[in-house]
C-alpha cells in the first residue's frame, strides 16, 4: 500500500463522507477539515516534488484486455497541490456565511459541496493516471464533474451554458478517444511511452492528425482560441466559490495533459518535424497561444459584469501558460508552469472578492457599483493584490512568471510573439483597472452607504490566497524547486534558481532585491509625503471640483459606463464575434442535415427508399467486386 493508495483511499472516503453528510449542518465544519486532511496526505508525498521518483499505486485493473495502472509524478503532485489549496480556500469560503445566504436564496448547498469534492476526486484521479486509458477515464470524470458544478445555479442561462460546455467537453473527449485508438491500433498497448514510439513510426499526415487531435482535446478543456466560447459564460454563471475553484484550476487540467502528453512524449523534435519547415506545429501552437492571450483579454475589456470579466481573463491567461511551455527552453517552460500556480492563486482570490461584493451589494454589474473602498477595505486590499498579480506587476507572483515567458521569447528571438504577449498584458492592466475602479473607487452610491465588510469566514480564505500571491512573488524560490523537478520529470531543461529568483546568463531576476527596492522607494515616497507636506484634510465626496457646480446626491457624479471610449472607437469594429458566427454556422449546417434526413423519413411511399437502397447496394457491390456475373 504505497502513499498514493493512501491518498486515493482518503479522497474517496472524503467523497463518501461529504455525500452522506452534505445536507446536515455539520458539513460546514467537516468539509474544510477533510480538504485539509487530503492536503496533509499530499504533503506527505512531497518528496516527489523535490527530485524524488514517482509513486506507483498498487491498484491496477485489467478489463477487456486493457491494463490500467496509476502513478503520481512530480507534474501530477504540482497540479494536485494547486487543486487542493484552491479547493480548501473555496470550501472555507463556501461553508461560512456565504453558504447560509446561498441556502436561504434557494440554492442547493449540499449538492454544491458534493460537486466540489467530486471535482477534487476526479482531478486527483486524472492527475494520478498511469496510462492512456486511465487518463481518458480521469478526463471524462473531470469534464462531468465540472458539468455537475456548473449546472447547480438556478438561472436558465447557467444551465444552457452548462449544456454547451458538456457538448464541447464531449467533443474533446471523443477527439482524445480517436487519438488513443490511433495509438492503440499500432501495437496494442496503451502505455504513455507508446505515444513517442507510435509517433515516430507514423507517416507525415497521420502525425499531423494525431497531434491535432490531442491538441484539440486538451485545447477545449483549457479554452484556447478556437474553442474558448464556452468557458467565460459557464464559469461566470457557476455559483459563488465554485466559480473561484473552476476558474483557478479546472481548465488547467488541459495544461496538465498538454505537458504530460504533447510536451513529455511528443516533445520539441516531434512538434518541429510535423508540418512544413516554415509553419511547423510549434509555431502553430505558439500563435494559438499568442492569440489566446490577446482576443479574450480584449473581450474581457468590454464586459460590464465583473464575473464575466474575470472568466474571460481566465481564458486569456491560459494563453500565457501555453506560450511559455511551447518554447521548450528552461525559462520559458518554467514560466508557463509557474503561471499555472500564480494564476490559480490570484484568479481564485479575485473571484472571491467579486462574490464577496455580490454577497453584500447583491450585484456584480460594474455599472451599478462604486466607491466601496471605504465600506469594504479588506476586500479592496485583496482585490488590489489580485489585480497587481493578474496584471503581472513586480511585487506579485504574476510578474515572475510573465517575466520568464518574456525572457524566453526574447532569447528565442520571437518579436511578434513578444509583442502579442505584451499586448495581452497591457489589455489586462486596462481591464483590471476598470474592474477595481468601477467596484471600489469613484462615488459611493446611496444604497451602499451602510454596506459592511464581509464576515471573517469569507475574508480568511481571501486574505490567505493574497498572502500566497505575495509570498510566491516576493520569494519565487519557494515554488521554483517544484517546477525544476517537474521539468526534470517531463524531460525539459531544468531552470537554475535560488530563493530570490532566477539565475540566467544574459540577465537574471532577483525578486527579493527588486521588491526590496520597490518597498524602499515606497518608504522614501511615504517619508517625503508625510514629513515634508503639511496636514491634509479629509473631505466628503461631494466636496469635489465640478466647474463651480454644487454637487448633490440627486445627480450621480461618477464615470464607469463605457470605460475606454477611445480604445473602443478604434477597435470597436473588430468585435464582429467571428468565432460566435463560426459556431452558429456549424450548428446551422447540422440542423440543415437533420431537416434533410427528416424529410427522407417522411417519404410518402417508403418502398421507393427500399428500391433506391437495393439498387445502390447492387451498384456498390458490382463496382466493388469489379467482375461481372
Amino acid at each position, binding site marked *: 500500500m504505497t502513499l498514493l493508495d493512501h491518498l486515493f483511499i482518503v479522497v474517496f472516503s472524503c467523497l463518501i463522507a461529504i455525500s452522506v453528510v452534505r445536507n446536515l449542518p455539520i458539513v460546514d465544519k467537516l468539509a474544510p477539515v477533510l480538504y485539509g486532511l487530503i492536503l496533509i496526505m499530499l504533503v506527505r508525498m512531497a518528496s516527489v516534488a523535490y527530485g524524488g521518483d514517482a509513486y506507483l499505486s498498487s491498484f491496477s485493473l485489467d478489463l477487456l484486455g486493457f491494463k490500467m495502472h496509476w502513478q503520481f509524478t512530480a507534474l501530477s503532485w504540482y497540479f494536485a497541490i494547486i487543486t487542493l489549496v484552491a479547493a480548501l480556500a473555496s470550501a472555507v469560503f463556501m461553508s461560512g456565511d456565504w453558504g447560509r445566504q446561498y441556502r436561504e436564496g434557494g440554492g442547493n448547498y449540499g449538492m454544491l459541496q458534493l460537486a466540489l469534492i467530486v471535482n477534487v476526486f476526479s482531478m486527483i484521479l486524472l492527475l494520478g493516471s498511469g496510462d492512456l486509458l486511465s487518463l481518458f477515464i480521469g478526463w471524462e470524470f473531470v469534464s462531468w464533474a465540472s458539468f455537475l458544478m456548473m449546472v447547480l445555479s438556478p438561472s436558465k442561462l447557467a444551465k444552457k451554458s452548462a449544456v454547451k460546455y458538456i457538448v464541447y467537453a464531449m467533443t474533446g473527449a471523443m477527439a482524445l478517444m480517436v487519438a488513443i485508438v490511433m495509438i492503440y491500433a499500432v501495437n496494442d498497448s496503451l502505455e504513455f511511452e507508446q505515444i513517442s514510439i507510435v509517433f515516430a513510426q507514423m507517416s507525415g499526415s497521420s502525425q499531423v492528425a494525431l497531434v491535432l487531435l490531442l491538441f484539440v482535446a486538451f485545447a477545449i478543456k483549457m479554452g484556447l482560441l478556437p474553442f474558448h466560447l464556452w468557458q467565460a459564460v459557464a464559469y461566470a454563471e457557476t455559483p459563488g466559490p465554485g466559480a473561484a475553484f473552476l476558474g483557478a484550476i479546472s481548465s488547467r487540467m488541459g495544461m496538465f495533459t498538454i505537458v504530460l502528453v504533447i510536451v513529455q512524449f511528443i516533445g520539441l523534435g516531434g512538434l518541429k518535424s510535423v508540418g512544413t519547415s516554415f509553419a511547423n506545429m510549434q509555431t502553430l501552437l505558439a500563435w494559438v497561444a499568442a492569440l489566446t492571450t490577446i482576443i479574450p483579454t480584449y473581450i474581457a475589456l468590454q464586459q460590464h459584469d465583473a464575473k464575466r470579466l474575470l472568466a474571460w481573463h481566465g481564458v486569456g491567461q491560459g494563453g500565457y501558460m501555453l506560450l511559455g511551455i511551447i518554447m521548450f527552453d528552461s525559462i520559458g517552460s518554467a514560466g508557463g508552469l509557474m503561471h499555472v500556480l500564480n494564476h490559480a492563486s490570484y484568479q481564485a482570490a479575485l473571484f472571491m472578492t467579486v462574490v464577496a461584493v455580490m454577497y453584500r451589494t447583491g450585484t456584480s454589474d460594474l455599472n451599478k457599483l462604486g466607491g466601496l473602498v471605504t465600506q469594504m477595505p479588506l476586500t479592496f486590499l485583496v482585490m488590489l493584490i489580485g489585480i497587481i498579480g493578474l496584471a503581472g506587476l513586480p511585487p506579485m507572483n504574476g510578474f515572475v512568471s510573465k517575466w520568464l515567458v518574456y525572457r524566453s521569447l526574447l532569447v528565442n528571438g520571437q518579436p511578434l510573439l513578444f509583442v502579442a504577449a505584451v499586448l495581452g498584458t497591457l489589455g489586462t492592466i486596462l481591464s483590471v483597472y476598470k474592474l477595481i475602479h468601477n467596484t471600489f473607487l469613484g462615488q459611493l452610491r446611496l444604497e451602499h452607504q451602510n454596506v459592511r465588510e464581509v464576515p471573517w469566514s469569507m475574508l480568511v480564505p481571501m486574505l490567505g490566497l493574497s498572502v500566497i500571491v505575495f509570498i510566491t512573488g516576493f520569494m519565487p524560490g519557494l515554488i521554483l524547486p517544484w517546477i525544476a523537478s517537474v521539468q526534470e520529470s517531463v524531460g525539459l531543461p531544468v531552470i537554475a534558481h535560488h530563493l530570490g529568483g532566477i539565475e540566467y546568463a544574459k540577465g537574471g531576476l532577483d525578486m527579493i532585491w527588486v521588491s526590496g527596492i520597490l518597498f524602499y522607494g515606497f518608504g522614501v515616497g511615504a517619508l517625503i509625503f508625510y514629513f515634508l507636506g503639511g496636514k491634509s484634510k479629509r473631505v466628503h465626496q461631494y466636496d469635489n471640483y465640478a466647474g463651480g457646480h454644487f454637487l448633490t446626491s440627486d445627480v450621480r457624479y461618477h464615470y464607469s459606463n463605457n470605460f475606454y471610449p477611445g480604445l473602443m472607437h478604434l477597435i470597436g469594429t473588430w468585435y464582429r464575434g467571428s468565432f460566435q458566427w463560426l459556431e452558429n454556422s456549424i450548428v446551422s449546417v447540422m440542423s440543415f442535415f437533420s*431537416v434533410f434526413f*427528416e*424529410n427522407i423519413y*417522411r417519404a*410518402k*411511399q417508403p*418502398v*421507393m427508399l427500399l*428500391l433506391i437502397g437495393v439498387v445502390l447496394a447492387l451498384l456498390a457491390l458490382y463496382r466493388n467486386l469489379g467482375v461481372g456475373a
Partner: protein
Amino acid sequence: MNHFFTVEGILYFGAISLSIIGLFGLLVSKNLFRLLLSLVLFEAGANLVLVLSGFIRNGIAPIFLDGNSGAVMNDPVPQALVLTAIVIGVGVQALALSLIFRVKKHYGSMDMRTIRSKLEREIAENAGVTPPGSNEAPAPVKLIEGENS
C-alpha cells in the same frame, strides 16, 4: 445473349417483368387498393422466379415418372417452397385488405398521401408536439396564451 431466347430465358424474363410491373405499381399508385394489387403482382413475380429456379430443360415433372428413373426430372423442392410462399402471401394480403377497410372507415379517403399526413398530425397531437415540417399551413403563432391550443 444466346441463352436469352431459350425457354427458361423467356420464362425468367416474364417472371422478372411481372415483379417489375408490381414494383412500379407500388411506386406510382396513390390509391390504397391499387397499392395492394401491385403488391400481389410483385409477390407473384417473385414466386414465379422461385419456381423457375428448379426448372431443368426438357425435364419432366417428377410425378409423371412411372418407375424409369433414367429421365431428367425438374427439381420438386422449389415447388414445395413456392406453395408456402403463396400461402403466406395470401395471408398477408388478406390482413392488408381488412386494414384498408378500417383505414378507409376512419380516414374517409383511400389516398395514401392524405392518410400519411393525417397520421403524422395525429401522432404529433397525441405527443403534444407540432407536426414536423408540415408544409400545408405554417405552425400557428401562439399570440395569446392558450388561444389557439
